[in-house]
């Protein structure tokens, strides 16, 4: 019995069942359509995404997201910046996990220059990367409750995210936009006492995950509103380029941290990739919860094995990147984020294509919202988890 066919069939059956139910409903209650505007200010949208839905009764027959309220043109702006200046811009793409945005760009530049950060810098980079994942996804877990009418989780999430932000601030000096990564290493070494403090915070965060699991994931209303809702089968998810937890929740065992060789420290410690076979809203939330907990373990294990040594490789004072092209992508909190950097040997890049995770994750919305009921729009959008800066760039 191969796993793949079983999982595929399970997803297909769920999808066929929901489609059949829709068809029946449409025959029974034929009503005049109406258009529902999910305005840019709806709390479920994490920013300014507008979704126009065409309704038939309570059912969505057509939905079209309209992005672009926050387009800042980073791809154009990178062409007039030097390499070290670009990290300041790309920090603001996914603003909840800022540090993780800098890393793939720096790695791409280092690849073009043919240098690698020293082991200690790689280690600290990976720790900060995982901390930004915890800060980002921790907020998602709290926010999830708000979308379904539970107010408590969001306060808990903001409370515990504060500890992580304090750690990021302690190490980098910036709470939201660290701009700490440099070509060839890091700006500074870790401050005194930071490692012990981080261990304590990681224990707190694991407790937070346990709380969320019992408070939210064990909740009957939560389960009723997410199980079997918004099912995305494996092949559709891959075709649309869904990545991160959204892809793993559809049963695809693919994590760039494990599957791609990057000069980072993930392969130095032991950890697990979590997947879920169902592909529904619940699966997406559940995978994120497990990943947050796994991240705290990764951080703890990395803290145990942190090597000594310099944090900066030898790089020239004025950075000129040799001509060439490089693509580097990493598993960011929201999914695969990558940069295609084209250099012509100048002080700044010739062209940078930014592949952000949410852009692809949201492009599936017209497909997944077809046939769902109005209240489910919110849970599906919340479970797909996007950040507007990451869609519009």
């Amino acid at each position, binding site marked *: 019995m191969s796993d793949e066919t079983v999982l595929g069939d399970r997803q297909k059956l769920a999808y066929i069942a929901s489609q059949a139910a829709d068809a029946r409903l449409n025959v029974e209650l034929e009503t005049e359509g109406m258009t529902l505007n999910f305005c840019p200010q709806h709390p479920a949208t994490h920013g300014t995404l507008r979704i126009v839905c065409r309704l038939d009764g309570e059912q969505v027959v057509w939905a079209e997201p309209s*992005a*672009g309220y926050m*387009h800042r*043109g980073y*791809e*154009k*702006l990178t*062409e*007039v*910046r030097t390499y070290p200046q670009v990290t300041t811009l790309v920090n603001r793409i996914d603003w909840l996990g800022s540090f993780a945005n800098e890393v793939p760009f720096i790695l791409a530049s280092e*690849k073009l220059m043919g240098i690698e950060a020293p082991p200690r810098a790689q280690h600290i980079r990976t720790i900060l990367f995982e901390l930004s994942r915890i800060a980002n996804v921790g907020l998602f877990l709290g926010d999830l409750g708000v979308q379904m009418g539970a107010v408590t989780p969001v306060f808990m999430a903001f409370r515990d995210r504060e500890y992580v932000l304090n750690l990021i601030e302690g190490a980098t000096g910036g709470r939201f936009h660290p701009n700490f990564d*440099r070509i*060839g290493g890091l700006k500074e070494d870790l401050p005194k006492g930071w490692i012990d403090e981080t261990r304590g915070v990681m224990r707190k965060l694991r407790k937070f995950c346990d709380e969320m699991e019992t408070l939210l994931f064990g909740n009957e209303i939560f389960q009723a509103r997410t199980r079997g809702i918004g099912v995305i089968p494996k*092949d*559709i998810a*891959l*075709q*649309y*380029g869904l*990545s991160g937890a959204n892809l793993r929740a559809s049963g*695809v*065992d*693919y994590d760039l941290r*494990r*599957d*791609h*060789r990057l000069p980072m420290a993930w392969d130095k410690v032991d950890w*697990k*990739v*979590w*997947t879920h*076979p169902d592909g529904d809203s619940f*699966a997406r939330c*559940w995978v994120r919860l*497990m990943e947050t907990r796994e991240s705290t373990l990764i951080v703890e294990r990395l803290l145990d094995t942190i090597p000594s040594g*310099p944090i*900066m490789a*030898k790089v*020239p*004072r004025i950075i000129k990147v040799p*001509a*060439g*092209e*490089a*693509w580097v*992508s990493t598993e960011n909190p929201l999914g695969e984020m*990558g940069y*295609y950097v*084209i250099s*012509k040997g100048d*002080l700044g890049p010739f*062209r940078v*294509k930014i*592949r952000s995770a949410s*852009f*692809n994750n949201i*492009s*599936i919305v017209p*497909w997944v919202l077809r046939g769902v009921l109005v209240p489910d729009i919110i849970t599906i959008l919340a479970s797909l988890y996007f950040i507007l800066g990451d869609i*519009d760039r």
Partner: protein
Amino acid sequence: MSPLPSDAPVAELPGDALRERAVDQLRSELGDALVDTLVKPGDDVWVRVRTDAWRAAGLALRDALGMDFFGYLSAIDWMPSPFGRGEDDPTQPPVERETAIVQGYTGGDTRFQMLARVSNTSRHYGITIKTDVPDDELTVQSWIPAYAGANWHERETHEMFGINFAGHPDLRNMYLPTGFEGYPLRKDFPLLARHVKTWPGIVDVEPLPGEPADEATETPEGEAAE
């Protein structure tokens, strides 16, 4: 609990042999429509296909090579920017700039090139594919039949570069207002912020009070590599 952490063994590492084999497979699928290839050892693989084989290449990648994951699709404008990096001093005479169009890896003949990336999620490697966009008619085939996710990427490329996609159902603007003139990511589209206000880097070269003029410009930024 049914959903368990995956213990599946990591499939064979992305090696150059794997990439070489992918290129050979693509060549047998596409024949002479595969114009140029580049396998950089230990890094990545680039291929360039003929414009009329763009969709066929997408389908071959998906079906024959098992590239199931759609990464992105975009374009490159290879013309050097007539404005440089936007740091010109308006009081000085205009600067002479390079105007020759030089393409990057796997070459090319046109100013615009399509750029896409797809990956194989079971063998853990990806491929970057390019094609020329004819200068006289900026149209390539749409990739939607191969990868449904290309829809939004093609809309974005259409409004940013002015490239048309034959077979795309709806090339509406995503970001810009309807009726916007010009294509912002083309190199000859000026970045207005750098034109209405002079780049401060030009203004700030005056020496600080009490410092001799020649030292002021040489002040180290404190960020130098030790």
